[in-house]
């Protein structure tokens, strides 16, 4: 289900494409909202993510077991925000600049994401600074489900390409 949503089918995997359109560190305004895309989370995407990190927990993968479990149905692993971050980020956004280096993150989890959820992201740079000749940005991200409930919120540091 929901397989053919155009925004998801058209995910651009070449991070060089439109690279010149993206904001440089110089242009990033802390506090300014990033443009983001809603994303429908599918069971297929959850299963692929689970495979990539070796998750085998039936709460994520076995519908009958999940239904009998504490969440009353299938959920995504909390770290699914790793996928949601890119899924909700348009191709021309500076977050996807080639060479962006992740320097550390912290995430707080409220409610699990579930298959079929329509996920939205509110995101911005909160701060930017220079340290040891490297250009840093502090990221501020919150994911919501279709009922406007917070799924998780996170803060991260990236080093921007020069």
């Amino acid at each position: 289900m929901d397989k053919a949503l155009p925004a998801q089918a058209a995910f651009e995997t070449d991070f060089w494409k439109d690279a010149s359109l993206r904001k440089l560190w110089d242009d990033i305004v802390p506090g300014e909202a990033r443009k983001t895309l809603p994303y429908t989370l599918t069971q297929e995407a959850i299963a692929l993510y689970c495979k990539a990190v070796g998750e085998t927990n039936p709460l994520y993968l076995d519908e009958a077991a999940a239904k009998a479990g504490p969440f009353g149905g299938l959920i995504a692993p909390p770290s699914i925000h790793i996928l949601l971050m890119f899924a909700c980020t348009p191709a021309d956004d500076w977050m996807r600049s080639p060479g962006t280096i992740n320097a550390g993150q912290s995430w707080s989890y409220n409610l699990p994401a579930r298959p079929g959820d329509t996920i939205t992201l509110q995101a911005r740079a909160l701060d930017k600074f220079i340290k040891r000749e490297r250009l840093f940005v502090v990221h501020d991200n919150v994911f919501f489900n279709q009922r406007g409930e917070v799924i998780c919120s996170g803060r991260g540091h990236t080093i921007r390409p020069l």
Partner: protein
Amino acid sequence: MTTSFDTLSAGDVIDGPKFAVSRESIRLFCDASLDYNPLHLDDDYMKGNFGKTNFGGIIMHGMANFGLISRMLTDWAYPAGAIHRRLETRWLTPVRPGDTIQPTGVIKSKQTTAKSRWVLIDVTVRNQHDERVATGEAMVEFPQGKIRDITPD
């Protein structure tokens, strides 16, 4: 042994899963996370082109460490009726194809608040040379009631 808030004490160890990193596992993580940053795809990308940072070949996504730590925490917490609530990590050393990494957790402290109970856990990911590749801290909630009571859908 069943993990419970009352029997846990500082110094208790949580063993995480070993994970073999290969070009294929990194590529699969690209597909699963939609993170196709050339750092993880193109060996030549960084040559001479990246200021202070040059890893000399593709590296694993830092967030794969994060995902692996998260897997360890949830596999430990759910059977105890507990919930993984927070994870903070820093990357120390790049991970490359051919490395094998493994997260571990050590219980740091317990905290009871007005409405719930919390366990703080120091986490470390090491490679096959016993080098620390990532460190962090996690917070797991041991609710007084059942998980279902606090996660309505």
